């Protein structure tokens, strides 16, 4: 039998109105953006009939193509590096006894979440500039490294959560059954941790794909990613091409985040 709750927010005055307002604010701009990506005219706010022309233009635009490829290369590499680092960090902070400075280490790992991104961006700009001068190397490596660094905490959090929720008796049992620490990690810890690792990698991927500030500061000439390319378009006449690119990015992100939620959802 359904019991009546003593406190039910839905019965507070204005609950429905506030909820609707919040959702409208969240989604109306995005819905508008998606609708105008199918605009027949070249305006981002005047409807000129349904058309897929801006998608075609975006896909045929070589600048967009190379920016998209660059974005995916950076996001894939950065999420792989960040996830590896985050897995090691999560193991290092959960699979051992308490140690002095534990909280400081924890804060340091999550530093990118707290330091203003613009500060990190400027710091990386200066730091990488001197390396560029010293080595002469101006490739994608800088962007990949920068993205890896700020993606670590996003990968770390789900992995650490999974590790903390995992019964350490599993690892004790493996050791009891003659598994060395390395074998225990390979055969027991890692397979059980896999959903967390995948979730972390996907989150890192999406975060990297989306980054503007750090990318804008760190990139060398001709190293636009999709977001910085779109930012560049603002300086010229804005066309629904930007809407089309945004809609594709949105679709990719939704697919990845849905997979993330399915993967982290509690089973059993």
């Amino acid at each position, binding site marked *: 039998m359904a019991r009546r709750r003593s406190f039910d927010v839905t019965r507070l005055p204005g609950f429905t109105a506030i909820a609707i307002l919040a959702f409208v604010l969240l989604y109306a701009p995005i819905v508008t953006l998606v609708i105008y990506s199918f605009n027949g005219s070249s305006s981002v706010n005047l409807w000129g009939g349904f058309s897929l022309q801006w998608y075609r233009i975006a896909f045929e635009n070589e600048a967009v193509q190379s920016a998209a490829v660059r974005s995916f290369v950076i996001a894939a590499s950065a999420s792989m590096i960040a996830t590896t680092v985050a897995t090691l960090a999560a193991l290092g902070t959960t699979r051992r006894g308490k140690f002095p400075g534990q909280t400081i280490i924890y804060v340091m790992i999550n530093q990118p979440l707290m330091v203003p991104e613009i500060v990190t961006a400027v710091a990386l700009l200066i730091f990488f500039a001197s390396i560029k001068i010293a080595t002469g190397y101006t490739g994608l490596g800088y962007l990949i490294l920068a993205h890896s660094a700020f993606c670590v905490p996003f990968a770390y959090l789900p992995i650490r959560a999974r590790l903390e929720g995992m019964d350490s*008796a*599993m690892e*004790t*049992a493996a*050791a009891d*059954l*003659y*598994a060395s620490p390395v074998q225990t990690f390979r055969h027991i810890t890692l397979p*059980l941790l896999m959903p967390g690792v995948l979730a972390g990698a996907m989150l890192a991927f999406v975060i990297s794909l989306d980054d503007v500030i750090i990318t804008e500061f760190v990139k060398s000439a001709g190293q636009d990613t999709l977001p910085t390319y779109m930012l560049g378009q603002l300086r010229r006449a804005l066309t629904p091409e930007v809407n089309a690119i945004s809609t594709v990015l949105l679709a990719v992100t939704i697919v990845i985040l849905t997979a993330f939620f399915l993967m982290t959802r509690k089973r059993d």
Partner: protein
Amino acid sequence: MTDTPAVEARNTVKTYGVGASAVNALDDVSITIAKGEFFTLLGPSGCGKTTLLRCIAGFETPTSGAILLSGRDITATPPNARPVNTVFQSYALFPHLTVAANIAFGLQMLGKSRAEVAQTVERVLALVRLESFADRLPQQLSGGQQQRVALARALAPAPQVLLLDEPLSALDLKLRKEMQSELKRLQTETGITFVFVTHDQEEALTMSNRIGVMSAGRLLQVGTPREIYDRPRNRFVADFIGETNFLVGTVVPGGVRLATGDTLAVPLNGHSGEVTLTVRPEQIRIAADGTGGTIPARVTQTTYFGTDTHYHLQLGDGSALVARLQSRAGGDDAHAQGDAVGVQIDAGTLQVLGE
């Protein structure tokens, strides 16, 4: 040297915490467990029995003292290099591996050949009667089945010693009884030394060759179930195992005199002064009031338990006893509340307790 003990703990101490808050989970425990024995560590929760088991398994390192396995000092050996296996209280089955893969795990880590692994898994599955469950995942099994997989997994590598940490505590009563005889059968069939941890005294009495009773980190008494039950050495052991009566008396020439003035001809074993005696309820007999050699008492309460009836008795000095007598078929209780009776205690069934 033919009878080197399977397991030996020498003056094992395990201290948690430091300084004033330090707690001795194990307080100078020495124990010798023979090969092929079913040895039970019995005690209330927090008595150190699981800590001792974990020291033998290698999950804990003793603060001082030594652990020997077949005469070899393994105190510093990591758990994966000790030829012992554990059945965990929570089973700790690997959820991502099938029943067969769980059982195969230890053998694979030992580097056994594929054929040998397959053969052993099949044999062990048959041993615990789970042949048809080989390809299931642990969460698809009932609690009792998971328990048997945990057993099979620990038995598969044929360890020198099998450690069992309250393995039956999560099972319901009926299943627990079944698993008790199952465990006993497995131990007899495999001949492996079992070290079994439990807080259930009945489990300990029915299954073990010998029992070690622990309390507050100390090993109080080691003996066969019969010795532990009939000849408890101190009050804790007498009280923890089964039901019992305590009587206080003073040592006099020829026995112990109770406060009632009656003297019981108990073997004294060097005790003197004020002593506590213990006698099991089923060893007390009730005779008619005034019968020679009996202690006068009054029945204060009777409780019917089916096969037997408990008679609560009060002696002349106010001390209380419980006598357990077999119930009489179809009749009334032999003695009713308020009856004056004579209590008969055979001196041989009395035990003088030490500290």
